[in-house]
């Protein structure tokens, strides 16, 4: 199948496709950021996207979530075309993402951050809130309880009323993942979740990723820089350089691929 390594197990290949990107191309004016990018991801997979700085990885995420509109190509999520849809509708269809540089609502409380992600599922309208109807009270209570459950899962329960910007870095990362999961996604896009973490924190993050994948039955597509994380948890990897895919395969195959080594370390490293 297009956009996948050939040697994956037949059990995985039999699963339905969740995300299918074909011939994705994006130009910033005349700068080619992404060229003919194709990836097909099946339900429940954990796929990595790696590449040196400026390879176009984050641009791919921005294209999937509708931040940019691609110059060409198609992005299908569970069969539905995403190109041209506004971001918030794409998110509401069941795709969530985090950001490379954390983007929390820094002046609001930890709980508010999660509650905001629930807004599309709030289930009450403007009139309910202005007149404080019974539906408002019931739904609001249910929302707060669900959000608190989320915070408990992520070990943030006792900080629910702290201002999000005041949390230590590691907890901010976690809160961002909690907020993304509160949108009730089936596909989670993680943009450099390990950025700025030490090896010990990366180990904890790997545990966390495995845990949320099982608990919420997620498909995960992650962009990462840190080999320690990618090589350990991804089932297969796509490598980008200068906007193009240069390799694809299981972690151990990619690690030995001379093109990949060249992209990361420069030509001299091979000689």
């Amino acid at each position, binding site marked *: 199948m297009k956009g996948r390594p050939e040697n994956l197990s037949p059990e995985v290949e039999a699963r339905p496709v969740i995300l299918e990107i074909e011939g994705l191309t994006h130009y910033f004016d005349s700068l080619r950021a992404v060229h003919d990018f194709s990836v097909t991801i099946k339900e429940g997979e954990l796929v990595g996207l790696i590449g040196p700085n400026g390879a176009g990885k984050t641009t791919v995420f921005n294209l999937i*979530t509708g*931040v940019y509109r691609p110059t060409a190509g198609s992005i299908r999520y569970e069969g539905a075309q995403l190109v*041209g*849809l*506004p*971001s*918030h509708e794409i*998110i*509401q269809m069941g795709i*969530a993402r985090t*950001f490379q540089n954390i*983007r*929390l*609502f*820094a*002046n*609001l*409380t930890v*709980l*508010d951050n999660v*509650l*905001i*992600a*629930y*807004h*599309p599922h*709030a289930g*009450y309208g*403007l009139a309910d*809130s*202005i*007149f*404080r109807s019974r539906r408002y009270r019931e739904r*609001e209570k249910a929302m*707060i*309880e669900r959000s*608190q459950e989320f915070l*408990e899962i*992520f*070990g943030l*329960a*006792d900080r*629910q*009323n702290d201002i999000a910007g005041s*949390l*230590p*870095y*590691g*907890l901010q990362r*976690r809160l961002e993942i909690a*907020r*993304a999961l*509160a*949108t009730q996604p089936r596909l989670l896009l993680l943009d450099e979740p390990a950025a700025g973490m030490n090896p*010990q*924190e990366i180990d*904890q993050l790997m*545990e*966390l990723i495995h*845990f949320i994948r099982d608990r919420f039955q997620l498909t995960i597509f992650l962009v990462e820089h840190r080999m320690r994380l990618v090589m350990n948890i991804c089932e297969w990897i796509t490598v980008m350089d200068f906007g193009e895919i240069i390799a694809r395969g299981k972690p151990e195959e990619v690690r030995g691929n001379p093109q990949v080594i060249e992209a990361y370390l420069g030509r001299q490293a091979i000689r």
Partner: protein
Amino acid sequence: MRQLLRNTNFTFILGAGLVFILVQALISVGVLNAYWQGIIFWGAAITMVSLGLNLIYGFNGQFSLGQFGFYAIGAYASADITYRWVRNDPSALVVVIFGSVLALVFMLGVSAFLRRFYGVATLAKFLFHFLAAVLGFFLAVRFVNPAIGKSVYTALNALPSGLSQQIVFFLALVGGATLAGIISYLFGIPVLELGSDYFGIATLGFTIIVKVLLDNTDTLLPFPEMKGARGMVGIPKWTTWPWVFFTFMAVVLVMRNLLHSSTGRAILSVREDERAAELVGIDTASQKILAFVIGSVFAGLAGGIRAHDMAFLHPTMFGFLPSFNPLIIIVFGGLGSMTGTIITGFFWIFLLEGLLRLYLPEGFETWRFVVYPLVLLLMMLLRPQGLMGRYEIAFLRRPLPPPRVKESPPAPKPIPEAGEVAV
């Protein structure tokens, strides 16, 4: 009793009730003469405009300079309704009320229709909504008014005269506010797409357009009774303390309840980080329009209150310089604080009018626009977050939910605490 006093809702209603009774009593015994009443009513009107602006700028992060335009629209529209009414002409009442209803229905239809298409160009969206609104008002002028105008008039006049006057005043306030809301919605569709700074410039342009149109109501627009730059006289003086008080409370309550809801949090998220909000599934464009329209409805409502207190309207009241009053008030009081806006709103009008005329020496009038900007400058240097920052009194504060009580033993915590390690 003590427990009751600890209930913030109760204490707030108690406090508000006491203020209401106190002011009413002072008015009745004549301590608060017409001059002081005017200052209080004006303060309430400006505070309502400022609360609306704080919703748009302080809570939603969109910098608007157009609120005085909507204030003017509300003032002139409601004044026209009552002006004509007391001259036995129900046409303005019928046209504004029924036209607004028709326009709203048509615009709802248009937006439901346009929602079925993706990527409709902003200008096309604007045009369709604009046509829908125009059609609504056209139908009201052409068909509804000739058909039912007379019967509305006789029906309302069949009521006792005091009651019918109160109803007409209520409808005039609602009509002015709705008109301001409809126009702000139309204006917001194309303009809120721009970033916040450009939005500020565009809304400033709006205020100026409104001012120019008001200067020429009798020549450019078909409203000879507004008398253009000579000023509109003969508006019934119907604004009383209960009207001011209850309108003001309605504005405060609506704004508070809105901000304490899920929609309120969505509005806040747009201010915090628009892109992040969009990427957790918030329709940021709708939140911006919503905050803008509600803020403008407040301004329109305040305009109606002010017009029927002054009994006189002049375009210079809505000119360039006074249009900065709400901005000064919310920055001074604290962006994102209703409490701060309410305190500074009344205080600012007292400073502009009351203090000046009664207590300060004669020559100060010339100096006031030297002194006040200097006060503002000092304020910005010493306390840039404004008087109140984001502080709210308990009644207006968003409640912090208590931590969840765990009934069952919590799920095994699979993740070690990372917080300590991170530092």
